[in-house]
């Protein structure tokens, strides 16, 4: 499948999540505009602020004389609020691109994801700054840096629940998904669009009881991934890899949660980037051990998947550190 089509599948999968985030940012921006423009102690503002229901029924001049004179932000508060407003505007202006991370070959995935989330987190820090400024508690030297970056570890529970999803485009050599485990929290979602042949079961490393994991080799939409209410990771990989869905809501035991599972007919015995054959075999064995009910014996031992992993394991010394 063409790269553009796969990117579209990835973007579709994160769109509803990110619409939620952008809407919240837009709503905050609206509120800030309201804050800065004031509710007004003048009739013209009141004629709008009171809404059309009041038109012809309320004397706006008179009403405005009773409006609390709070709308005018004091000089000390206005500057940080305007700075926060600029941050919100700049995030909104980026649109979908804000949620797409293209990893140049050889770059550190963990660091890049952390930086992007830190950039996105400025939406939350902008809200904090506004709140602090309104309360007269904003301190330039202490709080100004929040608008530059707001790393994931500082996000509170509500902010993590609103976390947008990311599409990460990278080459198979850099595809080491376990580095994003620290970011799998609340509703965070990641879709990897992997170019080239990756480790056949690379995503098995991020499987844990509460995390939805989908490795997709075909052109299926990631609907279940998008709808899952919780942390989720998906990877769009080449046809030489395993495809599977680990859905935590599908059952009590780990193997029940594998709602689909397909092993490749053949696995290449090549190191990929810094990922050795042995490591790939470990990925594969891990996937198999999580997804299969019990160790195959007797006739069941002739199962192709069982044979394949046994063969892969035999190709490497798991106790050593060979690459």
């Amino acid at each position: 499948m063409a790269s553009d089509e796969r990117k579209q599948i990835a973007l579709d999968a994160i769109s509803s999540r990110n619409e939620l985030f952008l809407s919240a940012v837009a709503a905050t921006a609206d509120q800030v505009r309201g804050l800065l423009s004031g509710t007004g102690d003048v009739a013209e503002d009141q004629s709008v602020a009171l809404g059309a229901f009041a038109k012809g029924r309320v004397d706006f001049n008179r009403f405005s004389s009773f409006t609390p004179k709070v709308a005018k932000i004091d000089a000390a508060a206005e500057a940080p609020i305007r700075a926060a407003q600029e941050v919100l505007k700049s995030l909104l202006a980026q649109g979908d691109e804000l949620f797409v991370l293209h990893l140049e070959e050889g770059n550190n995935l963990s660091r890049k994801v952390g930086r992007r989330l830190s950039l996105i987190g400025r939406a939350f820090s902008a809200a904090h700054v506004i709140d602090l400024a309104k309360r007269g508690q904003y301190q330039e030297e202490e709080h100004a840096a929040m608008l530059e970056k707001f790393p994931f570890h500082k996000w509170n529970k509500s902010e993590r629940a609103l976390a947008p999803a990311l599409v990460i485009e990278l080459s198979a050599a850099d595809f080491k998904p376990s580095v994003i485990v620290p970011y799998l929290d609340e509703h965070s979602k990641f879709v990897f669009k992997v170019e080239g042949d990756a480790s056949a079961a690379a995503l098995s490393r991020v499987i844990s009881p509460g995390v939805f994991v989908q490795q997709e080799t075909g052109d299926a939409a990631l609907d279940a991934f998008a709808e899952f209410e919780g942390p989720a990771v998906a990877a769009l990989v080449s046809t030489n890899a395993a495809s599977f869905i680990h859905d935590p809501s599908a059952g009590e035991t780990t193997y029940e949660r594998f709602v689909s599972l397909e092993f490749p007919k053949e696995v290449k015995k090549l190191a990929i980037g810094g990922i050795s054959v042995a490591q790939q075999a470990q990925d594969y064995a891990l996937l198999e051990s999580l997804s299969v009910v019990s160790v195959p014996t007797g006739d069941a031992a002739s199962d192709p998947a069982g044979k394949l992993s046994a063969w892969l394991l035999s190709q490497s010394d798991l106790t050593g550190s060979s690459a």
Partner: protein
Amino acid sequence: MASKETTITAVPEHTVEIITNSGEGAQKCAQIFGQTCAKMGNGVWTVEIIPAEIEPPHHTVTSTSGNIIRFGTDKVTNWGDRSKLAIAFNDQVLLSRHRLDSFADDCIILHESIWENHEDEAIRDGYAKAMKEMSSKNYRFIKVPIEEETLKVVDNAQHGKNMFALGLLTEIYQRDLSIIEKQIAYIFRTKSAKVTELNVELVKNGMAWARENLDFQFIIDSVPAEESRVVMNGNQACALGAIAAGMEICAMYPITPATSVSHELCDIIESYGGMVHQAEDEIAAAGVALGASYGGKVALTVTSGPGLALKTEFLALAIMVEIPLVVLDVQRGGPSTGLPTKVEQSDLLAALYGQPGDAPRVVIAPRTIEECFHSMITARRIAETFRCVVIILTDANLATGVQQFTRPDFDERWQGELIDASPVPEGLRPYDWDHDTGMSRRIIPGTPGGQHTVTGLAHDEESRVSYDPGSNERGQRMRSRKLAVFQSTLMPPPIYGDEEGDLLVVGWGSTQGAIEEAVDRARAEGRKVSSCQLTFLSPLEPGLKEIFSKFRKVMTVEINYSDNLGDPYITEETRRLGQLCWVLRAHTLVDLDCWTSVPGQPLRPNDIYNSIIENIENGSST
């Protein structure tokens, strides 16, 4: 029906009913038809017919579910009088509507043909008796093989008859099929494409059947609007209005007919940074909303009559501690659980006075679906400006009726901040009431220098519990004075018609369209009748006494109960009056009369017209 010539009649408007058993999809059919008419530029008003029970037995007079759609070339402001065309899926639901006198004498009735010769003798008997009972009218009955035709497309006729019926209406009224297809696709957007295809096919089959078998069509011209418009019901309008007003939390407990406000909000409010909280009961919902407002959020609680009764404790607390709160009461029939799905305006006195102790609050009543949207913005502003409770009274007529209106142009000032979170100046007390206005600064938790406790007990300016006579007097006076100050900002209500005459009809809320249509008819006959629709009910709009003085008689028209003079034991002394009538008599000392009705459905213009004529001809002067 054999091959025929089709008579095409141009009419300015028509009223159509689709009536089925509960669960047969009449609402969906009507929803699509109404939306299509609106999108084509017709004026539209729809009214739902909802059975009182959740699962009434099918094929009985109590199982009637459906929808009435009044649409015309011009703006339509109410459900009108009797229906000119009906589609009925069985004889019993048809009979129930006949018994309510819902059909015009020359109504065309398209009804399911399967029942006449049904294998079940009881059904055949029921059919025969129903048809006999209805033979007193000049209805034109046309049998339609609705089920048989539907089964040509789908296996289960229950899931398709409504779309076949929609096809009949589409052909009879020459509706734009492309709009209908889009509406169907939207309604079934979460289902597979096949579902949409089948539904469109059913519509086309219905059109083909009508083309082949019916000898009439109606043309109702439409004038596409120049401005952008939206089509929605009152509950949707309230929900969108709440978001436009910047409301951040809606705390509620499900109650008919208010629940769909929260359904609408659930779908979208999180995108705007808000949330819906379904509490464990009505009381808790009021408490959550109040708590959120105390914390500085813009809060709303949504309910209906029985829920309003349960919320009284927390409303009293909100009034006592002067925390802004908006309460939306979508009225239904009462008392007690009453008529959950039916229309009434019987919560007015409860909204105004339903509280132990003196608890002044603002009560407003939108008159149209458009005003449902805008009233939320106004309510928020009033509540925050005067630190008070604002109750919005809509009703089941507005809640479920569908109408189009000009798309609101969002303005950020609707959400303008009114909380002053800057440090509290030294010496400023939590209830530092301004002696002239009763107003004081709202201090939310966390405001530097603003730390204080709040209490529902009588308290002084420091917010400390105080039982001394002076501070209680002062607190009561200040809370009351705020309403007087707010009233001073109101303007006298506009008069519909001349500013003097023989009769002034006074209404409130959703009855505006029907009252004005009735007034128009009376005025067309040379009667000196005017009307006035109140929107601010507490405090009342000013100048009412002077307005009333220019008319020989003044009469309220309301959808709540009043005794009829002349009924056993009912005299001028014992007669209980309509709720607004009580209020206006007390407020103006004018001897108002009233005409009210509680049929569980909206008032019809013709019934109001008759009451106007009777009052002018028989009533004594005010």
